[in-house]
């Protein structure tokens, strides 16, 4: 087990180096003079920037040094969470990401809760009673949920609940009423996805040999379902909920744009529109690292839950 964890840490470290290298390289290959871009963003407008300022920035930011030197220099700062200063907001990038991430996390958590509350019963019911009308309905709704663009769902919810029924505020951040529509928007695809995975996991478990053995020993259906099928079928769900984190980060970008939710996705959209390089870089790196961390944790938990892998 320890050996395995060390191996996974090594792999995660490799991904970290690669991801930072790409993120930094992307900046370097962006069209236009980086020093000029920084100067324009910092002093506002072409006409306020002269040659001397650009030279000064170039020296100060180390832009005249070779690429690898710059990359290592940058990496050294990244390790201590110094991601630079946002060009437009003039606040430390890490600070911005940190405060905004809390809001996204809040939203993501409610979306996951919604997803599990709906997906677990429907998935189990559909898997156990495969082919019944309830199963077909669940399957159909799930495939529609997977296919629905979440930005469109958000707009439809606004038309329905804010414009027609006037029940919920159109957008913004505040009490629970602001949370309802974004959480549903973000949670729908997750719900559909989890339902599908859980259903097929149950069907697969139902066909396994040990289940036939259990039945042959005359153990009641209820006990088999509660103790054996669910336990096994929940293993893939753990994995999926973990892996869905990537989906949530993507969904957050869109959901937060639709509802003006002040989270990390909204920050990303404004950073890209402003061409705020350090902020874009920090955000890409941050999401990649969160993703790597979650993958790592899921991998370890998954191996722990499944004795076939744990003991081999």
């Amino acid at each position, binding site marked *: 087990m320890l050996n395995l964890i060390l191996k996974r840490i090594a792999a995660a470290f490799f991904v970290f180096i690669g991801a930072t290298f790409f993120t930094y390289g992307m900046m370097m290959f962006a069209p236009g003079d980086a020093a000029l871009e920084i100067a324009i963003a910092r002093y506002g407008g072409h006409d306020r920037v002269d040659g001397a300022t650009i030279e000064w920035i170039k020296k100060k930011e180390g832009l005249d040094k070779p690429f690898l030197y710059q990359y290592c220099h940058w990496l050294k700062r990244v390790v201590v969470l110094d991601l630079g200063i946002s060009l437009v907001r003039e606040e430390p990038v890490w600070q911005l990401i940190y405060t905004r991430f809390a809001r996204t996390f809040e939203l993501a958590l409610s979306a996951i809760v919604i997803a599990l509350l709906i997906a677990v019963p429907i998935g189990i019911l559909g898997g156990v009673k495969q082919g019944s009308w309830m199963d077909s309905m669940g399957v159909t709704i799930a495939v529609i949920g997977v296919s629905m*663009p979440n930005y469109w769902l958000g707009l439809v919810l606004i038309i329905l609940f804010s414009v027609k029924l006037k029940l919920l505020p159109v957008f913004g951040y505040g009490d629970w009423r602001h949370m309802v529509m974004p959480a549903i928007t973000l949670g729908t695809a997750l719900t559909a996805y989890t339902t599908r995975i859980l259903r097929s996991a149950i069907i697969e478990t139902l066909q396994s040999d040990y289940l036939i053995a259990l039945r042959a020993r005359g153990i009641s259906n209820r006990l088999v379902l509660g103790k054996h099928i669910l336990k096994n079928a929940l293993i893939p769900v753990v994995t999926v909920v973990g892996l869905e984190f990537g989906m949530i980060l993507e969904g957050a970008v869109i959901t937060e744009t639709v509802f003006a939710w002040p989270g990390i996705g909204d920050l990303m959209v404004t950073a890209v529109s402003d061409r705020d390089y350090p902020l874009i870089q920090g955000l890409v790196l941050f999401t990649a690292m969160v993703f790597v961390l979650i993958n790592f944790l899921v991998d370890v938990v998954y191996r722990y839950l499944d004795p076939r892998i744990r003991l081999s």
Partner: protein
Amino acid sequence: MNVRSALKNPLLIAAVVILFAVIVITLFGSMLAPHDPVETDLSVRFNPPSLKYPLGNDSLGRCLFSRILCGARMSIGLGIAVVLFSCFLGVTAGLISGYCGGFVDELIMRIVDIFFSFPEIVAAMAVAGLMGPGTLNLFFALSFVNWTRYARLVRGITLSVRERDYIKAAQLSGVSRTVTIIRHILPANLSSIIVLTTIGLAKAILAVSALGFLGFGIQPPDPEWGTLLMEGKDYILSAPHLSLYPGIAIMLSVLSFNLIGDALRDIRSRQR
């Protein structure tokens, strides 16, 4: 589920019909459009659906129906291009990785891990932000993250196929490496690749229009479904039809690909 029983599933038949319509619209959308998609007429701004303009008019009085028809070329076409390119890249990498094994395999898979760590939309946005928005940048950005799925799938299958007797027989009889891979290993991967491509198309169409919606996709005035939704969003209180219909177009096409992909997967798993 075999092919015949699949044909009895009404949902699947609907999906095939929708897919056919989507293909026709993608290819001939601009010819079918009743109006010029970029022609403005301020006298009919925000008009709701009418006989002359079946889905109403947008903020510049352009015909929404014609814009949706012409937008298919970008939304669907770009999605198809992304999937084909990333499928080609991923399958090549997966075949090499799985067949060669050892250090090559380890290296390719670690690179896949790196690309996999960037969420699709975030990576595409970053590229759009750094390189500037544009169709070609969007194409590369989306392919850049998508190929890893194919690489992982193909590698896994290749690893297991490699040990089969018929591959050993081919190797022993002196068939070259390239020929073995293309003639004997690739076909074993084909059914899985087709399933993943179909579902991948659904995902790519969603991603293209999501980026359009965020304003980093196809640039106006060219119509694209996600961009149409973005334009409509600002007028959601006064003209909700602008936010409604382009989304239905996206959902129906994505749904048809997903349903057909699911059916193909079912057929394949029954055959095993």
